[in-house]
């Protein structure tokens, strides 16, 4: 698909379209489609039009950048000053942050237009966008299926063109998997390449904000706008590199690894799609290599231990005292906190808080948490060694295409397992991109994943761009 951002940006710049007109158009699309898809949980039309008006002023003065005046959606766990940011949890109902996330500040200061909040799994804990307090989001390709998650609202909004692009967050695949399920592009940047300040934490050492877009070029443009060290986030890094200007589509002599561990237990249609993508790369001049990264199979259990441990601590602050929901029925402060948390959190969140509390408890800490940290080091090391052999890896994003609605709540363990193609990247802090590569027999989108070494966003985005261009020019892009 062509870059929506480039298209609108040039129309805006050439004064063939104003940001207010464009924003109204998108608000209309939301009004028409969101009832069916529940991709947005809140839309502030007045604010969006005000932002668009300000963007038009910037454009008139010849200021701004590619994102000026362009409407986007924001996952409900990214703080926007004065805008309800509830993580789709009852416990944060009514919470309006007193500050903007750094990524929001960057976008707003360049005149981008925030439309509203995208649906998600409660506190980003889930893979289907069904567990949030605003109900499930529906897959725009087929409403009987989920969007994937946890950034399912953003993926659905982009795939159905209710937003030009959306900001999601990826702790164990939450940008890449819904992108694959909905047929969008999802980039999970290197840990630290862009600021987490204002991203409401789930697993702090794994969380990363990433763009959901309709094209690789758009992913690169948004990534470039958001990346960079932030003095307010000590885990952010100055090592990230701009990607958009380096999109050439040239992948000659690129060494692409196919790690065999990623192809075990995968739906054959998906295996075929990835293999056919590999063949496309070969045609474009890249070389393929089958590789093996045995420690990857331990990444999944390590992920659930680390993510839940951090979550149990991160979510301790929701006590009903300062913001959000508070139970009305209590005699003292302890009872108030207990009742607030019991009623405020959903089932999956409680499950993960309990799991995390358990693995950090005296007597279990060494057996679980410490061991998980050692596995994490091993996985990171295994990736480092693999990237001595190859430039990037090509893998499936998920073992299946989108699940039917209500499937995950009855198949919890299987759903946890379905994250195993995406979590190793978070464990090792690497960048990865998910992009559409075909559809299954039901017509549901299939994605492929490209994984690179730390701060290799230009490389993986360019490889993704090459594939996307080849599909657009050739016959592979059946879903287009």
């Amino acid at each position, binding site marked *: 698909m062509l870059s929506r951002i480039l298209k609108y940006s040039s129309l805006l710049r050439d004064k063939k379209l104003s940001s207010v007109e464009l924003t109204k158009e998108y608000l209309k699309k939301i009004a028409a489609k969101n009832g069916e898809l529940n991709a947005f949980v809140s839309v502030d039309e007045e604010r969006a039009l005000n932002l668009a008006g300000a963007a038009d002023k910037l454009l008139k003065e010849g200021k701004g950048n590619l994102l000026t005046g362009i409407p986007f959606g924001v996952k409900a766990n990214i703080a926007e000053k004065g805008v309800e940011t509830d993580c789709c949890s009852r416990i944060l109902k009514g919470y309006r942050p007193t500050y903007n996330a750094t990524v929001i500040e960057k976008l707003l200061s360049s005149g981008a237009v925030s439309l509203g909040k995208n649906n998600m799994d409660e506190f980003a804990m889930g893979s289907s966008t069904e567990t949030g307090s605003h109900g499930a989001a529906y897959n725009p390709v087929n409403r009987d299926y989920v969007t994937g998650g946890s950034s399912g609202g953003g993926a659905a909004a982009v795939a159905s063109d209710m937003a030009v692009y959306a900001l999601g967050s990826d702790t164990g695949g939450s940008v890449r998997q819904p992108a694959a399920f909905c047929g969008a592009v999802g980039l999970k940047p290197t840990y630290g390449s862009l600021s987490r300040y204002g991203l409401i934490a789930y697993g702090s050492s794994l969380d990363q904000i990433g763009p959901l877009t309709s094209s690789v070029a758009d992913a690169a443009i948004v990534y470039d706008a958001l990346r960079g060290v932030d003095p307010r986030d000590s885990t952010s890094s100055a090592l990230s590199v701009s990607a958009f200007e380096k999109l050439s589509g040239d992948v000659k002599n690129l060494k692409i690894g196919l790690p065999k561990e990623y192809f075990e237990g995968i739906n054959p249609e998906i295996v075929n799609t990835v293999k056919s993508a590999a063949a496309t790369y070969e045609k474009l001049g890249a070389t393929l290599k089958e590789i093996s990264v045995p420690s990857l199979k331990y990444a999944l259990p390590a992920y659930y231990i680390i993510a839940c441990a951090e979550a*149990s601590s991160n979510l301790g602050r929701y006590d009903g005292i300062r913001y959000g929901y508070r139970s009305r029925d209590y005699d003292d402060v302890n009872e108030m906190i207990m009742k607030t948390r019991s009623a405020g959190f959903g089932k999956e969140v409680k499950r993960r808080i309990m799991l995390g509390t358990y693995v950090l408890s005296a007597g279990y800490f060494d057996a679980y948490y410490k061991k998980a940290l050692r596995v994490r080091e091993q996985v990171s090391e295994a990736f480092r060694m693999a990237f001595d052999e190859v430039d990037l890896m090509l893998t499936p994003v998920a073992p299946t295409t989108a699940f039917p609605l209500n499937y995950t709540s009855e198949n919890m363990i299987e759903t946890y397992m379905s994250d195993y193609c995406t979590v190793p990247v978070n464990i090792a802090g690497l960048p990865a991109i998910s992009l559409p590569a075909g559809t299954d027999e039901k017509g549901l989108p299939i994605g492929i994943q490209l994984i690179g070494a730390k701060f290799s966003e230009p490389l993986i985005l360019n490889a993704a761009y090459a594939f996307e261009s080849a599909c657009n020019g050739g016959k592979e892009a059946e879903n287009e």
Partner: protein
Amino acid sequence: MSKYLFVAGLETHVELQTESKIFCGCSTRFGAEPNTHCCPVCTGEPGSLPVINKKVLAYAIRAGLATHGKISEITSMDRKNYVYPDLPKAYQISQFENPVSVGGYIELDSGKRIRLNHIHMEEDAGKLVHEGGYTYIDYNRGGVPLIEIVSEPDISSVEEAREYVEKLQLIMRHIGVSDCKMQEGSMRCDVNISVHREGEPFGTRTEIKNMNSLSFMEKALAYEYSRQCDLLESGEKVVQETRRYNEGAQTTESMRSKEDAQDYRYFPEPDIPAIHISEEFVDSIRKTMPVLPDELRKIFVEKGLSDIEAKRLVEYKRVADFFLSSLSAGDAKIAANLILGEIFRSMGTEEEKEAFELKFDVEAFTELVALRAQNKINAAIQKRVLQEMLSKGGKPSDYLTADDLAGVDDSAVEGLCRDAIAANERAVRDYLGGKEQALKALLGFVMKATRGKANSGAVELKLKELLGK
């Protein structure tokens, strides 16, 4: 003498006097309107992130260096999880695995060293205010930087405990990291205490929390020591628990037992990467370390002061600095006497001595001391000039007349002494008859005649010489 040995170790919280908080840019100032020194980080707003204040790290390193600790090459923060309304994130960012300074000691005057286990950095919590049946939370104090100085159980008496705390206070004040005011909460102590018979292993310990004055600490420790001794004497056991000092009853009472002890579920703070402390950074701090109070005391004694005088001078950092820079005047004793005498008398409170704000500068003071040391003025003139300087500032020359400085030469002194002898027959007779006191009358005559300018020692000698004694 009791047959039970006293064993105590202290955990001392010291509030660092940095301008801004440990993890954000908010002010640390005490006493502001509630919740005015707050930001999303202090109130633990979802999505906010802590960023460590480098000055806090530098102050913690200062404290480590001043107590002979080993500064860690890698130091890291950990989360201590517990639920309390004054703790907005439900965890305190502290240090567990890799504290900033390890080991070290505080040396008591006896020469005994109280070993330190470590010093770590952490954030303070907010404050609960109970009013009219409601509880309010003030997060101004949330995120104020603290260091916790943890000693080994090397303290063997109430007196040693007091001396240890006083030494710590003094050191922290001298290195400029804290004012260590226990009443205002910028220093707080928790004490672990146990008793055992000589030759036997340590007994079961109890912890007494949050003692906010030295005298309470002494009373609490004395009480707890005898309580534990009595328990053992009567064949009972000491229960491991946390106790608090009840100021009214002057006793300690149980707060919670070991069974209720919290599991803090410490784990590495994922929002703050481990900090590498470079050799250069430590060196740059070492270069700015002042002479420490015990060393200052030694220097002062070497300059001729008594140990008591030296101790009193180092008690206040500014006083010690002032005195130290006045030593160039050449007479430490005169300078010390002026500071500990006239100047201290002009300062009513501890705070005034601590602040040691003078209307004149150290050069003026040094000049005054030198005038006296060189005998250019006498004690009376010096006192008068100092009073003038204390109330109006300036320098000695502003208040000295040519006459003051003229002095009295030897021949004049001799003449006056002869006059004195001639005019005071009775005193002369008494003196020669063995009444030493009588000489004072003659001395007084000469001093009066010179309006106090004569050197009284020289006059006395001359009188004795003339009287043939």
